[in-house]
């Protein structure tokens, strides 16, 4: 097959949200696409939506219906929010290919008649896109697998000769074609798409899977799909993993104190997760960010699953944030959805549509954990990942709030989902209950690629907005609120006490010294006295000795005199 070079294959975009991503760009041009699926899986909707999108681009198309009447089809699709199907004309035609019940069958037939009449239609229009809706209906009349196969080949040949892009729909139940006769159908087609509609965990989930696509890199796993009044939307992961270089530009979070902690703010185009228990002001933080974005003049979308928009506007007015003005002038688009009405993928599809419509630079979803209310945890997580991917692909700075109860120190375990790993910034809001008071704390759990503080800060809500306060650390424990004040006072007292103790000590020592000096003086004095005494004693002794000597001399003198007489 010399078709492996994607450069030689042309793709016709379907115009269906997300479908071209999983189909390697779109429908083969030319080529045949088989769309299989059970009843109600959306085969016709998908094909007609493609036709409508083509018509909107001015490209002519042809719808060949084998099951429903043209009038019924027009009625069915009038309920969608697309432009209505154009009336029969050059841009669009519906060919009624139903075999009337009054027709009598006598022997084997072939579909040349159909192809001839279609040819007549195509000669009067420029249609390049043809839909055969319910082709199995006609072929089942043949009651002969060989004959059916032959007719399909006939159709294929005809389509190839005319270089058309064709969508053929056929019924399937579960993973098996409605009857085995149709099991060979996939071999005819360049591309085979399977639509499923299953009930999982109590809610209905649709998926689309590209089973094969000749010569094209496509996404091969089942992908969630939704059908709403806006038609089909496919929520596939992007095939191009975001290799976009992260811009260095920072955008304000709405709190000057937080911007400082984050060295400037959030990175534009990044994702921010704000987790916390109920009442910890997660929504307020989200709204702060939205308000900052509109203040910069940027289109912003706010999606709320908890509270109606009016309630949010009232709530944040009390902390000095005005949402009413940007809502009124269209800078802010706010939508509140009831989670239980739709499953997680439906909600993400709606958000995708909002992003396509408003092209915002900032998106806030509050809380994204609400998606798990109407779907299983796994599906909700996958839907959230798609949301992250959607934002990344569209350069939207995404802030998600999520309900998270922190028990003890199990912050990491509690957020065991991959969202916390994929989000670029994770801020956790907590309550600290101390001394009979509840104070709010804000922690930056992680912040990819930029410096951030590891500390907990106290979060204050006041009439002029949100503010962060430096925390007080005492004895290794983070303390806030009144208790913090008390501790601060305690510490001051402590210092004072120490100071006065030291003063006392000093005085005592000085007194000691003084005492010692005094002692020295007195000793000195005594010493002097003793020395003087010693001198006197010595003088006395000398005196005494002299006096003795004098007496002895005088006595000797007297003796001498007597002798001489």
């Amino acid at each position, binding site marked *: 097959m010399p078709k492996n070079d994607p450069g030689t294959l042309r793709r016709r975009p379907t115009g269906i949200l997300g479908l071209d991503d999983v189909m390697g760009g779109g429908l083969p041009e030319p080529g045949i696409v088989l769309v299989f699926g059970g009843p109600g899986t959306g085969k016709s909707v998908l094909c007609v939506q493609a036709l409508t999108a083509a018509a909107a681009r001015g490209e002519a198309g042809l719808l060949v219906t084998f099951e429903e009447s043209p009038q019924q089809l027009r009625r069915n699709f009038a309920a969608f929010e697309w432009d209505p199907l154009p009336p029969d004309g050059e841009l669009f035609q519906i060919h*009624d*290919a*139903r*075999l*009337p019940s*009054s*027709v*009598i*069958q*006598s*022997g*084997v*037939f*072939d*579909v*040349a*008649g*159909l192809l*001839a*009449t279609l*040819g*007549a*239609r195509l*000669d009067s229009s420029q249609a390049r896109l043809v839909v055969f809706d319910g082709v199995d209906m*006609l072929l089942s009349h043949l009651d002969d697998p060989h004959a059916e196969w032959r007719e399909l080949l006939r159709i294929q040949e005809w389509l190839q000769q005319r270089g058309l892009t064709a969508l053929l729909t056929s019924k399937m139940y579960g993973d098996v074609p409605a009857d085995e006769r149709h099991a060979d159908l996939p071999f005819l087609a360049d591309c085979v798409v399977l639509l499923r509609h299953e009930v999982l965990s109590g809610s209905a989930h649709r998926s689309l899977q590209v089973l094969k696509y000749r010569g094209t890199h496509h996404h091969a796993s089942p992908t969630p799909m939704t059908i709403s009044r806006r038609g089909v939307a496919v929520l596939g992961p992007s095939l191009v993993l975001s290799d976009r270089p992260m811009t260095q530009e920072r955008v304000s979070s709405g709190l000057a104190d937080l911007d400082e902690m984050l060295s400037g703010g959030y990175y534009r185009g990044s994702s921010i997760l704000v987790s916390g228990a109920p009442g910890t002001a997660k929504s307020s933080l989200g709204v702060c960010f939205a308000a900052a974005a509109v203040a910069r003049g940027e289109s912003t979308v706010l999606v709320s699953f908890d509270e109606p928009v009016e309630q949010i506007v009232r709530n944040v007015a009390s902390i000095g944030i005005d949402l009413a003005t940007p809502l009124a002038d269209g800078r802010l688009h706010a939508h509140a959805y009831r989670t239980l009405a739709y499953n997680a993928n439906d909600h993400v599809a709606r958000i995708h549509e909002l992003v396509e419509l408003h092209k915002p630079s900032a998106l806030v979803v509050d809380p994204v954990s609400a998606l798990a209310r109407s779907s299983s945890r796994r599906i909700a997580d996958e839907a959230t990942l798609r949301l992250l991917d959607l934002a990344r692909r569209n350069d939207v700075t995404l802030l998600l709030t999520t309900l998270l109860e922190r028990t003890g120190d199990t912050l990491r375990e509690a957020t065991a989902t991959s969202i916390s790993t994929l989000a670029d910034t994770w801020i956790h809001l907590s309550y600290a209950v101390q001394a009979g008071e509840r104070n709010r704390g804000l922690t930056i759990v992680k912040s990819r690629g930029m410096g951030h503080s590891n500390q907990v800060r106290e979060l204050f809500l006041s009439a002029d907005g949100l503010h962060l306060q430096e925390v007080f650390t005492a004895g290794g424990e983070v303390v806030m609120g009144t208790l913090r004040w008390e501790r601060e006072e305690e510490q001051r007292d402590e210092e004072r006490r120490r100071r006065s103790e030291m003063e006392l000590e000093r005085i005592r020592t000085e007194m000691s010294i003084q005492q010692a000096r005094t002692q020295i003086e007195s000793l000195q004095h005594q010493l002097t006295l003793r020395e003087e005494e010693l001198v006197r004693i010595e003088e006395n002794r000398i005196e005494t000795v002299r006096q003795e000597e004098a007496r002895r001399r005088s006595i000797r003198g007297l003796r001498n005199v007597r002798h001489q007489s």
Partner: protein
Amino acid sequence: MNGQPQSSIDPRDLHLRLYVVAGQANSAAALDNLQRLLGEQWSEVEVEVLDVFEHAETALQDRVLVTPTLIRLRPAPVRRVIGCLADTTALTQALGLGTGVRR
């Protein structure tokens, strides 16, 4: 209604249109079968044999879906038979010929 016994129709009142694809086995067989059924009265019956590709516009107007398609345009009501017309009984009934056909 189908329950009503059909009175035979004079073949001369028939106006048939047979859509075929020239050169196709099915179509050749249909023509053959029809001729055989009508037998000697073939010349008395008005039968248009049209190639569906050459007369695509007419086929479109006649709402032809498959080939061969035999349409009994007259007498009313319009009847359609598809296939190579191998099933004579069905064909006879469809055309309303009943036992009036001389073979």
